[in-house]
């Protein structure tokens, strides 16, 4: 980890790794989408609409993974004062928020033909919605505070407080939902998942992860460059 501490070194490594990461992403998406759209059989109950699941489920996985990455980066920033940890957390947030929104939107599109409703307040949906709010709050705090060092310090706390609360919220929403279970039984995954459906899901899960990695590194690169630019501008206005 220490070897990535130098931003210039990190940029060199990122620049060298990114083309490979993008290539792997594209290949995995190709394989996964073939499995999802072509080779996986239509569900006996849901027909072809079950294929939304292949977009929806990995997006939800990533939404949770990215928040974990954000929280870990914030923890590393606090404990080790790693210079790039704040950059990692800051740039991960919008990507995670988009994955979260994608999960909610595709879930909604799936819900309409399957349940007859665009939205229901079951435990998972409610928890995912709250996760989206946590992302929004985190991004908002970076935008609200002007001074970058202070913004970083505050953002770390926001990320960690949010992370500590995710299991608590999840538990309380599950509890609430079992109390207020709607009359019909909702089956999100259908029956036990057959291998022919499971392998495209797993491949797409890995593909989404590589996509996040590629986007994250690109975003970190932009952020580091933006900071260098800002420092140069400050130095220049200092000389003038």
């Amino acid at each position, binding site marked *: 980890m220490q070897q990535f501490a130098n931003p210039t070194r990190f940029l060199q490594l990122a620049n060298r790794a990114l083309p490979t990461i993008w290539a792997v992403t594209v290949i995995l998406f190709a394989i996964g989408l073939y499995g999802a759209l072509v080779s996986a059989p239509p569900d006996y109950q849901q027909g072809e609409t079950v294929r939304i699941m292949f977009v929806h489920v990995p997006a939800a996985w990533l939404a949770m993974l990215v928040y974990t990455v954000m929280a870990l980066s914030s923890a590393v920033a606090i404990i080790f004062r790693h210079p790039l940890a704040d950059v990692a957390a800051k740039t991960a947030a919008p990507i995670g928020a988009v994955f979260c929104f994608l999960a909610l939107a595709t879930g909604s599109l799936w819900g309409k033909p399957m349940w007859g409703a665009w939205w229901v307040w079951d435990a998972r949906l409610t928890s995912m919605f709250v996760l989206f*709010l946590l992302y929004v*709050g985190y991004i908002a*705090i970076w935008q609200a505070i002007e001074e970058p060092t*202070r913004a970083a310090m505050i953002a770390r*706390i*926001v990320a960690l407080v949010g992370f500590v609360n995710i299991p608590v*919220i999840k538990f309380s929403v599950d509890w609430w939902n079992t109390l207020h279970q709607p009359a019909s039984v909702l089956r999100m995954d259908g029956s036990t998942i057959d291998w022919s459906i499971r392998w495209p899901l797993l491949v797409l899960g890995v593909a989404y992860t590589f996509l996040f990695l590629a986007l994250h590194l690109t975003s970190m690169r932009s952020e580091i460059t933006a900071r260098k630019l800002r420092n140069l501008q400050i130095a220049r206005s200092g000389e003038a």
Partner: protein
Amino acid sequence: MTLLFALLRRDLTLASRQGGGAGTALGFFLTVLVLLPIGIGPDQATLQRLAPGILWITLLLSVLLSADRIFQQDFEDGSLEVMAMAPPPLELVALTKAIAHWLSTSLPLSIAAPFLGILLNLRTEIIWPLTLAMVLGSFALSLLASIGASLTLNLRRGGLLISILVLPLYVPVLVFGMSATIGNPELIMPSLLILAAITLASLALAPMAAAAALRAYLR
């Protein structure tokens, strides 16, 4: 310790004399309580069914909207810097201020709210369970609000940002507060115990988060 008690007394005195404490929060509470039936419709049965939830949510919003008062004024006039340099750790200072907010705003509101539920045709047998649950949850509400207040110190549009940051933290309090109020009678005691657990956890963790945020602003 005497310093902390002095701080508590000072904050309570300021809250009672300056306003923005219980009185204003109560006013906000009443205003929302007037708007809701206008929005939902005056049907007594509907209001009765919705009343516990409405009262809880309005309590959350009232506590949250008065939260930025916790640190803001002392930060503006420099007292917070003095408090940071004083012998007691900043964590205890943050805790004392959260306690002051609780005593001056959350607690009075949580005692008054269930009785205001009469306006919403609240079932009378729920009033005492609701009061108990709200009073038990009110300390956690103030503690979590103090985290939000310290994170958004002196920011423009900080009020909205506090709400976005803290309302997800309020979800467990709301869930267990509601289940301690209405619903299965067997679950009332476990729900109250979980509310107490949330309060204790907030008591342990909120001052640390708040102090860390305050240090970022006091640099």
